[in-house]
C-alpha cells in the first residue's frame, strides 16, 4: 500500500473517532503528506468537536497591534509570492484574528500568534481555520495567550538547555556541551516555541511536517524538537572565539532560512532525534531534578491539557508497554548486553571445540 492508501485507511477509522493511536504514530513517523489529508486530520487532532459560528466581528481591543503584525506577515512563505494573494490572505487573517480576540477578550495577543493562525488558514481555509485557531488557543497555545510570557517561556528554554547538557554529556559531544555551558539563555528558541516554527521557516511543507509531528505528540514535545534542532545543526557554529559565542549562537539560529548557514534543515533527522530524546529524557524528571517550574495552570502538565485526553492516556499506555520497556532497557544497557553476548559466544565456541 502506498502512503495515500495507508492514510485513506487510517482516515476511515478516524471518521468513526477510533484509530487515533495509529494516526498519531503515522503523523510522528511520516507526516500527512498533503493539504487534502491535513485538512481532515488536523481538525480531529486539534480536538474540534463542534462547529463554531464564524461571524466577522468588530475590531478587537488589540486591533492596532494585530494590524501592524498582519501587514508584515505571510510574505516569507515561499509558496505565496503573488502580492494579490498575500493581500487577500492578510485581509482574511485580520478578520479571523479580530473575531477571535473580540470573542475571547480574556486572551492577550502575543506577536507570533498571527503566524500560527496564518498556517491554520493556509491549510484549512478561512472558516475551518478560524475554528482551529480558536481550539489551538484554548489548548496548544493557551499558556502564551493567558499568562505572562516571560514566566511561561523562561522555564521552557531552561529545560531545552538542561536537556542538551544531559544529551551532550551522555553522548560525549564536547562541542555541544561547551556551547550549552556558555549559552545560559538560548533565547533563539522563543519564536520556535511560540509559533511551532511557523515564524522561522519559509517553506510551508516543512512547517506542516513539524505541525503534523507536534499535533500527534505531547504538549512538551516542541521542547524536544527545539533541542533536537540545535543538536543536529550546532556543528556549523564557530566556537573559536568565546567572546562572540553568545552572539554567534543567536545569529546562527535566529534565521533558519539563511542558506549560507543552514543549507539543509535535515528535518526528518531532527524529528527522529526528538523522538529519541523524548524517550530517553523524561520531561517531568528533568523539571524535578533541575528545579524548573512552570505555572500550576500550565498546559505542559497533562492534567491541564484538555485536547484529546483519551489519546494521551493511550499514548502513555503504549510507552509503558512491555515491548517498549524491553527495547528501552536494551538501548540503555547495550554495552552490558554486547559484553554478555561476547562471553556467551566464547563459551559456545569452547563448548563446540571440546565436544568435537
Amino acid at each position, binding site marked *: 500500500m502506498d502512503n495515500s492508501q495507508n492514510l485513506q485507511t487510517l482516515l476511515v477509522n478516524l471518521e468513526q473517532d477510533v484509530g487515533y493511536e495509529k494516526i498519531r504514530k503515522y503523523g510522528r513517523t511520516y507526516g500527512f503528506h498533503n493539504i487534502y489529508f491535513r485538512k481532515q486530520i488536523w481538525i480531529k487532532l486539534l480536538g474540534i468537536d463542534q462547529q463554531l459560528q464564524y461571524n466577522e466581528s468588530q475590531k478587537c481591543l488589540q486591533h492596532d497591534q494585530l494590524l501592524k503584525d498582519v501587514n*508584515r506577515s505571510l*510574505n516569507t512563505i515561499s509558496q505565496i509570492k503573488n502580492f494579490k494573494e498575500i493581500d487577500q490572505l492578510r485581509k482574511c487573517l485580520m478578520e479571523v484574528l479580530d473575531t477571535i480576540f473580540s470573542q475571547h477578550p480574556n486572551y492577550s*495577543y502575543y*506577536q507570533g500568534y498571527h503566524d500560527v493562525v496564518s498556517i491554520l488558514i493556509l491549510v484549512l481555509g478561512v472558516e475551518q481555520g478560524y475554528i482551529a485557531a480558536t481550539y489551538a488557543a484554548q489548548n496548544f497555545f493557551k499558556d502564551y495567550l493567558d499568562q505572562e510570557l516571560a514566566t511561561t517561556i523562561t522555564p521552557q528554554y531552561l529545560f531545552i538547555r538542561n536537556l542538551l547538557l544531559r544529551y551532550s554529556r551522555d553522548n560525549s559531544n564536547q562541542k555541544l556541551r561547551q556551547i550549552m555551558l556558555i*549559552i545560559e539563555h538560548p533565547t533563539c528558541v*522563543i519564536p520556535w516555541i*511560540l509559533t511551532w516554527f511557523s515564524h522561522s521557516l519559509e517553506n510551508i511543507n516543512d512547517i506542516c511536517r513539524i505541525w503534523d509531528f507536534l499535533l500527534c505528540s505531547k504538549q512538551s514535545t516542541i521542547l524536544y524538537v527545539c533541542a533536537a534542532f540545535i543538536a543536529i545543526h550546532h556543528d556549523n557554529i564557530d566556537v573559536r572565539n568565546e567572546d*562572540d559565542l553568545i552572539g554567534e549562537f*543567536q545569529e546562527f539560529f*535566529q534565521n533558519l532560512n539563511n542558506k549560507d548557514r543552514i543549507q539543509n534543515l535535515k528535518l526528518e533527522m531532527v524529528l527522529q532525534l526528538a523522538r529519541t530524546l523524548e524517550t530517553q529524557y523524561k520531561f517531568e524528571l528533568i523539571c524535578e531534578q533541575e528545579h524548573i517550574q512552570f505555572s500550576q495552570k500550565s498546559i505542559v502538565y497533562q492534567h491541564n491539557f484538555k485536547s484529546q485526553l483519551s489519546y494521551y492516556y493511550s499514548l502513555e499506555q503504549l510507552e509503558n508497554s512491555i515491548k517498549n520497556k524491553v527495547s528501552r532497557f536494551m538501548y540503555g544497557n547495550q554495552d552490558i548486553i554486547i559484553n554478555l553476548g561476547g562471553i556467551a559466544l566464547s563459551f559456545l565456541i569452547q563448548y563446540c571445540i571440546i565436544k568435537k
Partner: protein
Amino acid sequence: MSRQANSQDYDWLVKVIVIGDSGVGKTNILSQFCDAKFSITHMATLGVDFKIKTIDVDGKKLKLQIWDTAGQERFRNITKTYYKGAQGVILTYSVIDRQSFQNVDGWLRSIQENTNSNDVQLVLVGNKADMSAERQVTMEEGQKLSQQYNIPFFETSAKSNMNINESFHNLAQRIISTLCKMQANDDAPKLNLKQTEGKEKTKADGCC
C-alpha cells in the same frame, strides 16, 4: 562586557541594544546599518535578534554587538534581561506613530531601572522621517524631548538611509569616550584587575 582586545580584529567590544515600540522600524534600522538593506517584508521580532558590526571611530576599531529587541509590551520582561551590560541604547520611535513617541518616557524609565544608567549612552531616534504625508510627530517635538533628557537626537529613515550611520557613530563615539574616561580614572593595576573581572563576569552571566 566592554573589553579591550589584544591582537584581535577590534580594539573595543561593546554591547548595544535597540529598543522602542513595536513597528517603529528597529529591525530595518539595524539591517540598513549592518547590511545596507531595507525590506518591507521584515516580520515582527519575537524575543531578540542579534547583529554584529565593526566600525572605525577616531582610529579605533569598535566591534558592536547589537541586540534588536521585540517591541510588544508582552515581551518586555524577556527583553529586559538583555539590558544588563549594555553600554549603548538606540531608543526608537516612529514619526508617523504618535503613541510610540509618547511611550519614550516609559522606555527611558525602563533603561534607568535595568541598567547602570550613568555608564550607558543613549541616542533618541525618530524613524520613518521619509513618510512626510503621514507624519504625526514634528521634528521640534523630538528635539524638545531630547533636550529635556539631554540625549542626542536624530530623525532617521531606514528606507532612504538617512542619518542611520550618523546615529550609530554618535553613540559609538560617546561610548568610547566613556570607556576612556573609566580607563583614565583607574590606575594601571586596577585597570588590569577590572578587565579580568569583566571577562569572567561575562562568562558567568551567560546571556548578556
